[in-house]
């Protein structure tokens, strides 16, 4: 942080070593599970970092082999449920955030406060009643039965992030466009939508990320392949035989479910980081 001046060779070396150590700390566990996912069953017992024989067997097992039913259906459930929940959350949150950023009315602070309060509400304290309720009204182990609680996870943060984005949009542009002869709808579409899209998009990624990662609802409110999402399925993995630990398959599955999120976030890193910190810091 301190001086931006010239560093001596020794200092430069020190900082480089430090950076490498820090990177190792962050990435070594990821590299470890990546390496494990390429190990053969026999190889797993060896405490060595790299596999002695590289194999795709673990990936084959969960994608086309014995475990495919468990993994691929869960993957499909996760993607479907998460996308639907994200879409609904973003639509509702856009309306809500628009009103918060644009319109003046009493009780605005209360609404933002409610959204915040809901977002910190411990999931574990409502999961048992939801379980009972869902069993009574037939939502247990269905997509909708997960979409609804996922909305309660994603809506509050979506509202906060979008409200922060919308507050920075120069809404005068809309009036300026109308003065220039555009209709109200044209003005909104041409002037405001392009400015708002990055915020909406970032919010969608954050909402997706949160719903995708959920474990508590996933494991409590599903019981079969009908709706079980990936995180819950990972906990149910069993090996090819009862006596074999499914370590390789679990590692491969963990890699597969992590890749989409990492790629998505890395591509849009800049927007997401600023979105997250705005939501958190600016309030």
């Amino acid at each position, binding site marked *: *942080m301190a001086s931006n001046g010239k560093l001596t060779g020794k200092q430069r070396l020190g900082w480089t070593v430090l950076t490498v150590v820090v990177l190792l700390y962050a*990435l070594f566990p990821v590299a470890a599970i990546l390496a494990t996912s390429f190990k053969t069953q026999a190889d797993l017992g060896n405490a060595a970092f790299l596999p002695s024989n590289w194999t795709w067997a673990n990936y084959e097992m969960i994608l086309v082999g014995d475990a495919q039913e468990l993994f691929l259906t869960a993957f499909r459930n996760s993607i479907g449920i998460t996308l639907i929940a994200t879409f609904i959350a973003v639509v509702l949150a856009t309306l809500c955030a628009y009103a918060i950023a644009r319109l*003046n009315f009493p009780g605005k*602070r209360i609404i933002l406060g409610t959204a915040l309060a809901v977002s*910190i509400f411990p*999931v574990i304290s409502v999961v048992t*009643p939801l379980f009972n309720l869902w069993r009574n009204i037939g939502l247990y182990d269905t997509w909708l039965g997960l979409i609804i609680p996922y909305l309660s996870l994603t809506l509050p943060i979506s509202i906060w992030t979008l409200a922060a984005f919308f507050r920075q949009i120069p809404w005068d542009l809309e009036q300026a466009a109308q003065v220039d002869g555009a209709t109200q709808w044209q003005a909104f579409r041409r002037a405001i939508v392009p400015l708002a899209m990055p915020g909406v998009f970032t919010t969608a990624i954050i909402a997706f990320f949160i719903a995708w990662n959920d*474990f508590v609802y996933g494991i409590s409110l599903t019981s079969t392949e009908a709706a079980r999402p990936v995180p819950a399925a990972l906990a149910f993995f069993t090996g090819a035989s009862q006596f074999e630990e499914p370590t390789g398959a679990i590692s491969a599955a963990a890699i597969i479910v*992590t890749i989409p999120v990492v790629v998505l976030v890395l591509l849009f890193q800049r927007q997401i980081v600023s979105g997250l910190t705005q939501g958190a810091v600016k309030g």
Partner: protein
Amino acid sequence: MTTTQNPPAAVAGEAHTTTKPTAPEKSRVRSDRAEAWRRRAPLMPALIFLIIVTQVPFLLTIWYSLRSRNLLRPEGEQFVGLSNYGDIFLDSTFRQAALNSVLITFGCVIVAMLLGLGLALLLDRKFFGRGIVRTLLITPFLIMPVAGALLWSISMFNPTYGLVNWLIGLVGISPVDWTSEYPMFSVIVALVWQWTPFMMLLLLAGLQSQARDALEAASVDGASAWQTFRYITLPHLRFYLELSVLLGAIYVVNTFDHIYLMTAGGPGTASANLPFYIYQRAFLGFDIGQSAAMGVVTVIATIALALLALRLIFKSINAKEQS
């Protein structure tokens, strides 16, 4: 935040005056009220939904917590007042789970915050490849928590082929069965690893919002790097440090995935935290009443934490508005 809105809304707001309304004004007041509700309309779907989905189940939780309800003994359901609460505080496992929750939360949050501060300071320097290093350092936060927990319990901490044992084996230490001998430590390590990037991002935002001229002035005045950090950076960061601890604590206190997958609360109940113990009592022990009572206690504890965070956030907003 209500003061900086667009002009038409402000005019509408002024209509509510204290003077006695004449007839036309009365209708104006009424239409104003309708207008106010029309303005609130876009908020309603999200808000009503949120309240129904979280608060109705919570009311049910409170209701359950006042009844004796054990799914294994269906005949015994009755109103028992606060006796579930009395029972859970006499339950030594509950007290231990509560203590574990505190240990895990603060252990994880403090260590992750210190590491995150270190990483943020590292990234606040200009160096070649900074963008890539930052991106790579965020990775642990992007790993699905379930995958992260499995990654630590399988690849890192496994007693026979875990890489931690491989690493300590290189310097001649004999293998350790981490998740059963040191379950709390193992869980905290995995959580710290996952949460460090979150702290780093928040604190980096704080560092980069520092006024550069103050730092330059300090270096012109001959302050050492440590003095600059201690007297300029640290006071500036205070808000961000407090915020990262509180936000981190609110999330980490609800940790469930890591306990479930790494130790299953074990050995015995040695590493169960409150969410895990609540889940265990409800879904494996079928004791809905006591589990609900513990849920209510957890909610109260979380609200206390959150109120602290909120006060901090609003204090900073007010400070910014005044300055």
